[in-house]
Protein backbone atom coordinates (compact mmCIF):
# COMPACT_ATOMS: atom_id res chain seq x y z
CA UNK A 1 0.00 0.00 0.00
CA UNK A 2 2.82 2.34 0.89
CA UNK A 3 4.54 1.62 -2.41
CA UNK A 4 1.24 2.26 -4.22
CA UNK A 5 1.02 5.75 -2.78
CA UNK A 6 4.70 6.29 -3.47
CA UNK A 7 4.08 5.47 -7.12
CA UNK A 8 0.96 7.59 -7.14
CA UNK A 9 3.01 10.63 -6.16
CA UNK A 10 5.46 9.98 -8.99
CA UNK A 11 2.64 9.35 -11.44
CA UNK A 12 1.04 12.68 -10.53
CA UNK A 13 4.32 14.46 -11.17
CA UNK A 14 4.80 12.92 -14.63
CA UNK A 15 1.13 13.35 -15.34
CA UNK A 16 1.56 17.07 -14.66
CA UNK A 17 4.23 17.38 -17.36
CA UNK A 18 2.23 15.39 -19.90
CA UNK A 19 -1.04 17.15 -19.17
CA UNK A 20 0.42 20.67 -19.46
CA UNK A 21 2.02 19.83 -22.80
CA UNK A 22 -0.96 17.84 -24.10
CA UNK A 23 -3.24 20.84 -23.52
CA UNK A 24 -1.27 22.81 -26.11
CA UNK A 25 -1.65 20.09 -28.72
CA UNK A 26 -5.34 19.73 -28.04
CA UNK A 27 -6.24 23.42 -28.04
CA UNK A 28 -4.47 24.04 -31.33
CA UNK A 29 -6.06 20.97 -32.91
CA UNK A 30 -9.51 21.90 -31.65
CA UNK A 31 -9.35 25.39 -33.06
CA UNK A 32 -7.21 25.12 -36.18
CA UNK A 33 -7.48 21.38 -36.96
CA UNK A 34 -3.75 21.21 -36.93
CA UNK A 35 -1.35 18.97 -35.06
CA UNK A 36 1.44 21.30 -34.05
CA UNK A 37 4.29 18.82 -34.19
CA UNK A 38 6.73 21.50 -33.09
CA UNK A 39 5.04 21.64 -29.70
CA UNK A 40 7.52 19.31 -27.95
CA UNK A 41 10.30 21.62 -29.08
CA UNK A 42 8.36 24.65 -27.91
CA UNK A 43 8.40 22.91 -24.51
CA UNK A 44 12.20 22.64 -24.85
CA UNK A 45 12.48 26.34 -25.77
CA UNK A 46 10.35 27.15 -22.73
CA UNK A 47 12.69 25.20 -20.47
CA UNK A 48 15.69 27.08 -21.91
CA UNK A 49 14.00 30.44 -21.56
CA UNK A 50 13.28 29.45 -17.97
CA UNK A 51 16.94 28.58 -17.50
CA UNK A 52 18.09 31.99 -18.71
CA UNK A 53 15.49 33.92 -16.75
CA UNK A 54 16.31 31.99 -13.55
CA UNK A 55 20.06 32.34 -14.09
CA UNK A 56 19.65 36.05 -14.73
CA UNK A 57 17.53 36.59 -11.65
CA UNK A 58 20.02 34.60 -9.54
CA UNK A 59 22.92 36.67 -10.89
CA UNK A 60 21.10 39.83 -9.86
CA UNK A 61 20.54 38.34 -6.43
CA UNK A 62 24.20 37.35 -6.05
CA UNK A 63 25.44 40.73 -7.23
CA UNK A 64 23.26 42.26 -4.56
CA UNK A 65 21.06 44.34 -6.91
CA UNK A 66 18.02 42.58 -5.56
CA UNK A 67 17.67 39.95 -2.91
CA UNK A 68 15.03 37.40 -3.72
CA UNK A 69 14.29 34.13 -1.98
CA UNK A 70 14.51 31.01 -4.17
CA UNK A 71 10.78 30.39 -4.32
CA UNK A 72 10.17 33.92 -5.55
CA UNK A 73 12.84 33.53 -8.23
CA UNK A 74 11.07 30.34 -9.32
CA UNK A 75 7.68 32.04 -9.38
CA UNK A 76 9.02 34.99 -11.40
CA UNK A 77 10.82 32.58 -13.71
CA UNK A 78 7.61 30.70 -14.42
CA UNK A 79 5.65 33.90 -15.09
CA UNK A 80 8.29 35.57 -17.28
CA UNK A 81 9.12 32.39 -19.22
CA UNK A 82 5.43 31.71 -19.85
CA UNK A 83 5.03 35.21 -21.28
CA UNK A 84 8.15 34.97 -23.44
CA UNK A 85 7.37 31.47 -24.68
CA UNK A 86 3.88 32.53 -25.66
CA UNK A 87 5.55 34.99 -28.01
CA UNK A 88 7.62 32.11 -29.42
CA UNK A 89 4.42 30.13 -30.00
CA UNK A 90 2.73 33.08 -31.68
CA UNK A 91 5.74 33.55 -33.95
CA UNK A 92 5.63 29.86 -34.90
CA UNK A 93 1.97 30.29 -35.82
CA UNK A 94 2.56 33.52 -37.71
CA UNK A 95 5.61 32.38 -39.66
CA UNK A 96 5.08 28.66 -39.96
CA UNK A 97 1.38 27.90 -39.99
CA UNK A 98 -0.63 30.96 -40.99
CA UNK A 99 0.59 30.94 -44.60
CA UNK A 100 -0.60 27.31 -44.76
CA UNK A 101 -4.05 27.93 -43.26
CA UNK A 102 -5.80 26.77 -46.44
CA UNK A 103 -3.15 24.24 -47.49
CA UNK A 104 -3.64 20.47 -47.08
CA UNK A 105 -3.24 19.43 -43.45
CA UNK A 106 -0.33 17.14 -44.36
CA UNK A 107 1.69 20.19 -45.47
CA UNK A 108 1.08 21.86 -42.13
CA UNK A 109 2.10 18.70 -40.27
CA UNK A 110 5.38 18.51 -42.21
CA UNK A 111 5.95 22.20 -41.55
CA UNK A 112 5.55 21.46 -37.84
CA UNK A 113 8.19 18.75 -37.97
CA UNK A 114 10.55 21.13 -39.77
CA UNK A 115 9.96 23.94 -37.29
CA UNK A 116 10.80 21.42 -34.56
CA UNK A 117 14.09 20.51 -36.22
CA UNK A 118 14.89 24.20 -36.70
CA UNK A 119 14.28 24.90 -33.01
CA UNK A 120 16.47 21.94 -31.95
CA UNK A 121 19.35 22.62 -34.31
CA UNK A 122 19.05 26.38 -33.84
CA UNK A 123 19.50 25.84 -30.12
CA UNK A 124 22.47 23.56 -30.81
CA UNK A 125 24.09 26.13 -33.09
CA UNK A 126 23.49 28.96 -30.66
CA UNK A 127 24.43 27.34 -27.35
CA UNK A 128 26.66 24.46 -28.38
CA UNK A 129 26.39 20.79 -27.57
CA UNK A 130 26.96 20.89 -23.84
CA UNK A 131 24.00 20.27 -21.61
CA UNK A 132 22.84 22.97 -19.25
CA UNK A 133 21.96 22.38 -15.69
CA UNK A 134 18.84 24.09 -14.40
CA UNK A 135 19.76 26.12 -11.28
CA UNK A 136 18.45 24.64 -8.02
CA UNK A 137 16.08 27.39 -6.94
CA UNK A 138 14.54 25.64 -3.97
CA UNK A 139 16.17 23.13 -1.64
CA UNK A 140 14.60 19.70 -1.61
CA UNK A 141 12.74 18.85 1.56
CA UNK A 142 11.34 15.39 2.06
CA UNK A 143 8.26 14.78 4.14
CA UNK A 144 7.39 11.34 5.37
CA UNK A 145 3.62 10.96 5.40
CA UNK A 146 2.61 7.55 6.74
CA UNK A 147 5.66 5.97 5.17
CA UNK A 148 5.27 7.71 1.79
CA UNK A 149 8.09 10.06 0.86
CA UNK A 150 6.84 13.29 -0.65
CA UNK A 151 9.17 16.13 -1.58
CA UNK A 152 8.24 19.78 -1.55
CA UNK A 153 9.20 19.90 -5.23
CA UNK A 154 6.68 17.25 -6.20
CA UNK A 155 3.93 19.01 -4.27
CA UNK A 156 4.89 22.27 -5.96
CA UNK A 157 4.97 20.71 -9.44
CA UNK A 158 1.56 19.07 -9.14
CA UNK A 159 0.11 22.14 -7.42
CA UNK A 160 1.32 24.59 -10.07
CA UNK A 161 0.13 22.30 -12.86
CA UNK A 162 -3.34 21.94 -11.37
CA UNK A 163 -3.51 25.69 -10.68
CA UNK A 164 -2.61 26.51 -14.29
CA UNK A 165 -5.23 24.07 -15.57
CA UNK A 166 -7.82 25.71 -13.36
CA UNK A 167 -6.85 29.15 -14.69
CA UNK A 168 -7.06 27.84 -18.25
CA UNK A 169 -10.47 26.36 -17.54
CA UNK A 170 -11.74 29.67 -16.14
CA UNK A 171 -10.27 31.57 -19.08
CA UNK A 172 -11.96 29.31 -21.60
CA UNK A 173 -15.33 29.20 -19.88
CA UNK A 174 -15.63 32.74 -18.52
CA UNK A 175 -13.94 35.21 -20.85
CA UNK A 176 -15.03 36.40 -24.27
CA UNK A 177 -11.72 35.22 -25.74
CA UNK A 178 -12.32 31.75 -24.32
CA UNK A 179 -15.83 31.91 -25.71
CA UNK A 180 -14.41 32.79 -29.11
CA UNK A 181 -12.00 29.84 -28.88
CA UNK A 182 -14.81 27.43 -28.12
CA UNK A 183 -16.94 28.88 -30.89
CA UNK A 184 -14.06 28.63 -33.34
CA UNK A 185 -13.60 24.96 -32.46
CA UNK A 186 -17.26 24.39 -33.31
CA UNK A 187 -17.56 26.40 -36.50
CA UNK A 188 -14.38 27.97 -37.82
CA UNK A 189 -15.73 29.59 -40.97
CA UNK A 190 -18.37 31.78 -39.38
CA UNK A 191 -16.16 33.36 -36.70
CA UNK A 192 -15.44 36.59 -38.63
CA UNK A 193 -19.20 37.23 -38.94
CA UNK A 194 -19.21 37.76 -35.17
CA UNK A 195 -16.65 40.54 -35.61
CA UNK A 196 -13.96 38.24 -34.21
CA UNK A 197 -10.60 38.25 -36.03
CA UNK A 198 -9.59 34.63 -36.73
CA UNK A 199 -5.89 35.50 -36.62
CA UNK A 200 -6.22 36.95 -33.12
CA UNK A 201 -7.81 33.78 -31.78
CA UNK A 202 -5.30 31.57 -33.60
CA UNK A 203 -2.40 33.53 -32.10
CA UNK A 204 -4.02 33.46 -28.67
CA UNK A 205 -4.40 29.68 -28.85
CA UNK A 206 -0.77 29.17 -29.77
CA UNK A 207 0.26 31.66 -27.09
CA UNK A 208 -1.69 29.88 -24.36
CA UNK A 209 -0.43 26.44 -25.37
CA UNK A 210 3.16 27.64 -25.48
CA UNK A 211 2.86 29.36 -22.11
CA UNK A 212 1.69 26.10 -20.55
CA UNK A 213 4.54 24.27 -22.30
CA UNK A 214 7.01 26.76 -20.78
CA UNK A 215 5.58 26.11 -17.33
CA UNK A 216 5.96 22.38 -17.96
CA UNK A 217 9.55 22.95 -19.09
CA UNK A 218 10.48 24.80 -15.92
CA UNK A 219 8.72 22.30 -13.65
CA UNK A 220 10.57 19.57 -15.53
CA UNK A 221 13.82 21.46 -14.99
CA UNK A 222 13.12 21.65 -11.27
CA UNK A 223 12.60 17.87 -11.10
CA UNK A 224 15.23 16.79 -13.64
CA UNK A 225 17.68 19.68 -13.94
CA UNK A 226 19.46 18.63 -17.15
CA UNK A 227 18.53 20.54 -20.30
CA UNK A 228 19.51 19.56 -23.82
CA UNK A 229 18.16 20.62 -27.22
CA UNK A 230 16.47 17.27 -27.83
CA UNK A 231 14.74 17.03 -24.46
CA UNK A 232 11.37 17.91 -26.01
CA UNK A 233 11.15 15.13 -28.56
CA UNK A 234 10.20 12.08 -26.52
CA UNK A 235 8.13 13.94 -23.94
CA UNK A 236 6.48 15.88 -26.76
CA UNK A 237 5.45 12.71 -28.57
CA UNK A 238 4.18 11.20 -25.36
CA UNK A 239 2.11 14.29 -24.63
CA UNK A 240 0.81 14.10 -28.19
CA UNK A 241 -0.29 10.53 -27.46
CA UNK A 242 -2.05 11.89 -24.37
CA UNK A 243 -3.85 14.50 -26.47
CA UNK A 244 -5.05 11.79 -28.86
CA UNK A 245 -5.97 9.50 -25.98
CA UNK A 246 -7.98 12.30 -24.39
CA UNK A 247 -9.80 12.98 -27.65
CA UNK A 248 -8.63 15.41 -30.29
CA UNK A 249 -9.58 18.94 -29.36
CA UNK A 250 -10.87 18.03 -25.90
CA UNK A 251 -9.29 20.17 -23.19
CA UNK A 252 -10.64 18.10 -20.33
CA UNK A 253 -9.58 14.95 -22.17
CA UNK A 254 -6.02 16.20 -22.63
CA UNK A 255 -5.60 17.01 -18.96
CA UNK A 256 -7.15 13.74 -17.85
CA UNK A 257 -5.20 11.61 -20.35
CA UNK A 258 -1.95 13.37 -19.40
CA UNK A 259 -2.35 12.14 -15.85
CA UNK A 260 -3.57 8.74 -17.03
CA UNK A 261 -0.42 8.39 -19.12
CA UNK A 262 1.69 9.18 -16.06
CA UNK A 263 -0.13 6.48 -14.10
CA UNK A 264 0.17 3.84 -16.81
CA UNK A 265 3.89 4.51 -17.22
CA UNK A 266 4.77 4.50 -13.55
CA UNK A 267 2.66 1.50 -12.65
CA UNK A 268 3.89 -0.50 -15.64
CA UNK A 269 7.39 0.05 -14.33
CA UNK A 270 6.47 -1.37 -10.93
CA UNK A 271 5.38 -4.66 -12.48
CA UNK A 272 7.78 -5.08 -15.41
CA UNK A 273 11.49 -4.36 -15.80
CA UNK A 274 12.05 -0.67 -16.45
CA UNK A 275 13.35 -1.31 -19.98
CA UNK A 276 9.89 -2.68 -20.81
CA UNK A 277 8.10 0.36 -19.47
CA UNK A 278 7.30 2.34 -22.62
CA UNK A 279 6.78 -0.78 -24.72
CA UNK A 280 4.06 -2.02 -22.43
CA UNK A 281 2.61 1.36 -21.49
CA UNK A 282 2.11 2.36 -25.12
CA UNK A 283 0.77 -1.06 -26.06
CA UNK A 284 -1.91 -0.49 -23.44
CA UNK A 285 -2.73 2.87 -25.01
CA UNK A 286 -2.86 1.28 -28.45
CA UNK A 287 -5.43 -1.17 -27.14
CA UNK A 288 -7.50 1.64 -25.57
CA UNK A 289 -7.48 3.52 -28.87
CA UNK A 290 -8.54 0.39 -30.73
CA UNK A 291 -11.72 0.38 -28.72
CA UNK A 292 -12.12 4.15 -28.48
CA UNK A 293 -10.60 5.52 -31.68
CA UNK A 294 -11.87 9.02 -30.96
CA UNK A 295 -10.21 9.05 -27.57
CA UNK A 296 -11.76 9.12 -24.15
CA UNK A 297 -13.53 12.47 -24.45
CA UNK A 298 -13.44 12.90 -28.23
CA UNK A 299 -16.50 13.27 -30.38
CA UNK A 300 -17.47 10.54 -32.79
CA UNK A 301 -16.95 12.78 -35.78
CA UNK A 302 -13.65 14.42 -36.52
CA UNK A 303 -14.49 16.73 -39.39
CA UNK A 304 -16.05 19.80 -37.88
CA UNK A 305 -18.04 22.29 -39.86
CA UNK A 306 -15.42 23.97 -41.94
CA UNK A 307 -16.14 25.62 -45.25
Amino acid sequence: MVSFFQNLVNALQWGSFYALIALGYSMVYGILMLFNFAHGDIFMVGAYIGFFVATGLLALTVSGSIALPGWLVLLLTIIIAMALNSIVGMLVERIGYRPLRDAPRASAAITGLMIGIILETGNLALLGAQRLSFPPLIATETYNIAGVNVTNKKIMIVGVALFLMLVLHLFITKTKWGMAMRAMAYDFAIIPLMGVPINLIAALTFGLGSALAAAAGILYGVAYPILDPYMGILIGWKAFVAAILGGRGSILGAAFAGFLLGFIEIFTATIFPSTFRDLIAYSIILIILTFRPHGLFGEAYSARLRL
Partner: protein
Amino acid sequence: MLSVKNLQVSYGKITALHGITFNIQKGEIVCIIGANGAGKTTTLRAISQLVKADAGSEIIYDGKNLVDYPADKIVSELGISHVPEGRHIFGNLTVQENLTLSAFARKDRDAVAKDMEWVFSIFPRLKERQWQKAETLSGGEQQMLAVGRAFISGRNIMLLDEPSMGLAPLLMMDMFAALKKINEEGTTILLVEQNARLALKFAQRGYVLESGQIVLEGPSADLLANPDVKKAYLGG
Protein backbone atom coordinates in the same frame (compact mmCIF):
# COMPACT_ATOMS: atom_id res chain seq x y z
CA MET B 1 -25.59 53.40 -49.39
CA LEU B 2 -24.27 50.06 -50.62
CA SER B 3 -23.32 50.02 -54.25
CA VAL B 4 -22.09 46.86 -55.94
CA LYS B 5 -20.54 47.29 -59.36
CA ASN B 6 -19.37 44.60 -61.73
CA LEU B 7 -19.03 42.02 -58.97
CA GLN B 8 -17.35 38.93 -60.30
CA VAL B 9 -16.45 35.91 -58.18
CA SER B 10 -14.72 32.75 -59.36
CA TYR B 11 -14.06 29.49 -57.59
CA GLY B 12 -11.03 28.19 -59.43
CA LYS B 13 -12.02 28.04 -63.08
CA ILE B 14 -15.72 28.27 -62.41
CA THR B 15 -17.19 31.76 -62.44
CA ALA B 16 -20.10 32.03 -60.00
CA LEU B 17 -20.93 35.70 -60.56
CA HIS B 18 -20.45 37.33 -63.94
CA GLY B 19 -20.11 40.99 -62.97
CA ILE B 20 -23.38 41.92 -61.29
CA THR B 21 -24.39 45.46 -60.40
CA PHE B 22 -26.96 46.52 -57.84
CA ASN B 23 -27.48 49.02 -55.05
CA ILE B 24 -29.35 49.48 -51.80
CA GLN B 25 -30.48 52.73 -50.22
CA LYS B 26 -30.45 53.41 -46.51
CA GLY B 27 -33.43 51.92 -44.70
CA GLU B 28 -34.55 49.83 -47.67
CA ILE B 29 -35.47 46.18 -47.82
CA VAL B 30 -34.10 44.71 -51.02
CA CYS B 31 -34.24 41.10 -52.11
CA ILE B 32 -32.33 38.98 -54.56
CA ILE B 33 -34.30 35.99 -55.79
CA GLY B 34 -33.14 33.13 -57.91
CA ALA B 35 -32.88 29.39 -58.17
CA ASN B 36 -30.49 27.19 -56.29
CA GLY B 37 -26.98 27.79 -57.59
CA ALA B 38 -27.76 31.17 -59.18
CA GLY B 39 -25.09 32.87 -57.07
CA LYS B 40 -27.19 34.36 -54.26
CA THR B 41 -25.10 33.03 -51.40
CA THR B 42 -21.89 33.94 -53.21
CA THR B 43 -23.13 37.53 -53.55
CA LEU B 44 -23.60 37.85 -49.78
CA ARG B 45 -20.33 36.08 -49.03
CA ALA B 46 -18.50 38.47 -51.34
CA ILE B 47 -19.95 41.50 -49.53
CA SER B 48 -18.89 40.00 -46.19
CA GLN B 49 -15.44 39.19 -47.58
CA LEU B 50 -15.87 35.51 -46.79
CA VAL B 51 -14.94 34.99 -50.43
CA LYS B 52 -12.68 37.33 -52.37
CA ALA B 53 -14.13 39.05 -55.42
CA ASP B 54 -12.15 38.99 -58.66
CA ALA B 55 -10.10 42.07 -59.58
CA GLY B 56 -12.18 44.91 -60.98
CA SER B 57 -15.13 44.25 -58.69
CA GLU B 58 -16.36 47.17 -56.61
CA ILE B 59 -18.38 46.91 -53.42
CA ILE B 60 -18.70 50.44 -52.08
CA TYR B 61 -20.28 51.26 -48.73
CA ASP B 62 -20.16 54.87 -47.50
CA GLY B 63 -17.33 55.59 -49.93
CA LYS B 64 -15.23 52.64 -48.73
CA ASN B 65 -14.36 49.69 -50.92
CA LEU B 66 -15.17 46.63 -48.85
CA VAL B 67 -12.62 44.57 -50.75
CA ASP B 68 -9.94 46.35 -48.68
CA TYR B 69 -11.39 45.13 -45.36
CA PRO B 70 -10.86 41.82 -43.54
CA ALA B 71 -14.09 39.93 -42.90
CA ASP B 72 -14.28 40.69 -39.18
CA LYS B 73 -13.94 44.45 -39.74
CA ILE B 74 -16.86 44.44 -42.20
CA VAL B 75 -18.96 43.53 -39.19
CA SER B 76 -17.22 45.34 -36.36
CA GLU B 77 -16.21 48.59 -38.10
CA LEU B 78 -18.80 49.01 -40.84
CA GLY B 79 -21.74 47.35 -39.08
CA ILE B 80 -22.63 45.02 -41.95
CA SER B 81 -23.89 41.81 -40.36
CA HIS B 82 -24.59 38.52 -42.08
CA VAL B 83 -27.01 35.73 -41.19
CA PRO B 84 -25.48 32.79 -43.03
CA GLU B 85 -27.36 30.10 -44.87
CA GLY B 86 -28.00 27.18 -42.55
CA ARG B 87 -27.79 29.43 -39.45
CA HIS B 88 -24.37 28.30 -38.23
CA ILE B 89 -25.11 28.91 -34.59
CA PHE B 90 -22.45 27.76 -32.13
CA GLY B 91 -24.14 24.67 -30.73
CA ASN B 92 -21.59 24.11 -27.98
CA LEU B 93 -22.25 27.58 -26.52
CA THR B 94 -25.37 28.67 -24.67
CA VAL B 95 -27.86 31.03 -26.26
CA GLN B 96 -26.53 33.84 -24.09
CA GLU B 97 -22.94 33.04 -25.00
CA ASN B 98 -23.80 33.10 -28.71
CA LEU B 99 -25.23 36.60 -28.24
CA THR B 100 -22.32 37.74 -26.06
CA LEU B 101 -19.83 36.52 -28.63
CA SER B 102 -21.53 38.53 -31.35
CA ALA B 103 -20.66 41.67 -29.34
CA PHE B 104 -16.98 40.63 -29.22
CA ALA B 105 -15.61 43.78 -30.82
CA ARG B 106 -18.10 46.22 -29.31
CA LYS B 107 -16.92 48.53 -26.54
CA ASP B 108 -20.29 50.19 -25.79
CA ARG B 109 -21.40 47.87 -23.01
CA ASP B 110 -24.59 49.67 -22.11
CA ALA B 111 -25.77 49.74 -25.69
CA VAL B 112 -24.94 46.04 -26.04
CA ALA B 113 -27.05 45.24 -22.99
CA LYS B 114 -29.91 47.27 -24.48
CA ASP B 115 -29.60 45.51 -27.83
CA MET B 116 -29.72 42.14 -26.08
CA GLU B 117 -32.87 43.11 -24.25
CA TRP B 118 -34.37 44.22 -27.54
CA VAL B 119 -33.47 40.90 -29.19
CA PHE B 120 -35.13 39.07 -26.29
CA SER B 121 -38.19 41.30 -26.69
CA ILE B 122 -38.71 40.38 -30.33
CA PHE B 123 -37.72 36.73 -29.77
CA PRO B 124 -39.10 35.85 -26.32
CA ARG B 125 -38.31 32.18 -27.00
CA LEU B 126 -34.61 33.00 -26.82
CA LYS B 127 -35.08 34.52 -23.39
CA GLU B 128 -36.73 31.30 -22.21
CA ARG B 129 -33.82 29.31 -23.57
CA GLN B 130 -31.12 31.82 -22.53
CA TRP B 131 -28.97 29.32 -20.60
CA GLN B 132 -29.50 26.30 -22.82
CA LYS B 133 -26.88 24.97 -25.20
CA ALA B 134 -27.76 26.34 -28.62
CA GLU B 135 -27.66 22.85 -30.18
CA THR B 136 -30.75 21.95 -28.17
CA LEU B 137 -32.81 24.65 -29.92
CA SER B 138 -35.34 23.83 -32.62
CA GLY B 139 -34.64 24.94 -36.18
CA GLY B 140 -36.84 28.00 -35.83
CA GLU B 141 -35.22 29.02 -32.56
CA GLN B 142 -31.78 28.59 -34.10
CA GLN B 143 -32.82 30.94 -36.89
CA MET B 144 -33.99 33.48 -34.28
CA LEU B 145 -30.63 33.17 -32.57
CA ALA B 146 -28.77 33.64 -35.84
CA VAL B 147 -30.78 36.81 -36.57
CA GLY B 148 -30.41 38.11 -33.00
CA ARG B 149 -26.69 37.52 -33.11
CA ALA B 150 -26.39 39.41 -36.39
CA PHE B 151 -28.40 42.33 -35.00
CA ILE B 152 -25.99 42.68 -32.07
CA SER B 153 -22.85 42.25 -34.17
CA GLY B 154 -23.62 45.13 -36.52
CA ARG B 155 -26.80 46.87 -37.51
CA ASN B 156 -26.25 49.25 -40.38
CA ILE B 157 -26.99 46.57 -42.96
CA MET B 158 -28.15 43.00 -42.35
CA LEU B 159 -27.48 40.41 -45.03
CA LEU B 160 -29.93 37.54 -44.74
CA ASP B 161 -29.34 34.25 -46.50
CA GLU B 162 -32.51 32.13 -46.83
CA PRO B 163 -34.01 32.93 -43.41
CA SER B 164 -37.17 30.98 -44.38
CA MET B 165 -35.32 27.74 -45.02
CA GLY B 166 -36.74 24.82 -43.07
CA LEU B 167 -39.29 26.90 -41.15
CA ALA B 168 -42.93 25.91 -40.74
CA PRO B 169 -45.31 28.51 -42.31
CA LEU B 170 -46.37 29.99 -38.97
CA LEU B 171 -42.80 30.36 -37.74
CA MET B 172 -41.88 31.87 -41.08
CA MET B 173 -44.51 34.60 -40.62
CA ASP B 174 -43.17 35.33 -37.13
CA MET B 175 -39.64 35.49 -38.46
CA PHE B 176 -40.52 37.99 -41.18
CA ALA B 177 -42.53 40.08 -38.71
CA ALA B 178 -39.40 40.23 -36.55
CA LEU B 179 -37.26 41.18 -39.54
CA LYS B 180 -39.72 43.99 -40.27
CA LYS B 181 -39.18 45.29 -36.73
CA ILE B 182 -35.42 45.13 -37.22
CA ASN B 183 -35.81 47.17 -40.39
CA GLU B 184 -37.97 49.70 -38.54
CA GLU B 185 -35.13 50.09 -36.01
CA GLY B 186 -33.11 51.54 -38.89
CA THR B 187 -31.34 48.48 -40.22
CA THR B 188 -31.15 48.19 -43.99
CA ILE B 189 -31.88 44.66 -45.18
CA LEU B 190 -30.54 42.71 -48.13
CA LEU B 191 -32.45 39.45 -48.35
CA VAL B 192 -31.60 36.48 -50.50
CA GLU B 193 -34.37 33.92 -50.97
CA GLN B 194 -35.46 30.94 -53.03
CA ASN B 195 -39.00 31.58 -51.80
CA ALA B 196 -39.60 34.39 -54.30
CA ARG B 197 -43.18 35.18 -53.38
CA LEU B 198 -42.33 35.61 -49.72
CA ALA B 199 -39.26 37.71 -50.51
CA LEU B 200 -41.04 40.01 -52.96
CA LYS B 201 -43.93 40.60 -50.56
CA PHE B 202 -41.45 41.54 -47.84
CA ALA B 203 -39.05 43.68 -49.88
CA GLN B 204 -39.63 47.01 -51.61
CA ARG B 205 -37.37 46.20 -54.54
CA GLY B 206 -35.95 43.04 -56.00
CA TYR B 207 -33.31 41.67 -58.33
CA VAL B 208 -33.59 38.38 -60.20
CA LEU B 209 -30.35 36.44 -60.39
CA GLU B 210 -29.89 33.70 -62.97
CA SER B 211 -26.64 31.78 -63.49
CA GLY B 212 -24.57 34.53 -61.96
CA GLN B 213 -26.22 37.41 -63.83
CA ILE B 214 -28.95 39.86 -62.92
CA VAL B 215 -31.67 39.43 -65.53
CA LEU B 216 -34.43 41.57 -64.08
CA GLU B 217 -34.83 44.27 -61.46
CA GLY B 218 -37.51 46.60 -60.21
CA PRO B 219 -40.06 47.34 -57.51
CA SER B 220 -41.43 44.19 -55.91
CA ALA B 221 -44.96 44.81 -57.18
CA ASP B 222 -43.69 44.96 -60.77
CA LEU B 223 -41.70 41.76 -60.38
CA LEU B 224 -44.67 39.98 -58.79
CA ALA B 225 -46.75 40.96 -61.81
CA ASN B 226 -44.07 40.13 -64.36
CA PRO B 227 -45.11 37.11 -66.46
CA ASP B 228 -41.55 35.74 -66.70
CA VAL B 229 -41.07 35.93 -62.94
CA LYS B 230 -44.49 34.38 -62.40
CA LYS B 231 -43.63 31.50 -64.68
CA ALA B 232 -40.13 30.85 -63.39
CA TYR B 233 -40.39 31.61 -59.69
CA LEU B 234 -43.99 31.92 -58.55
CA GLY B 235 -45.37 28.67 -59.88
CA GLY B 236 -47.21 30.04 -62.95
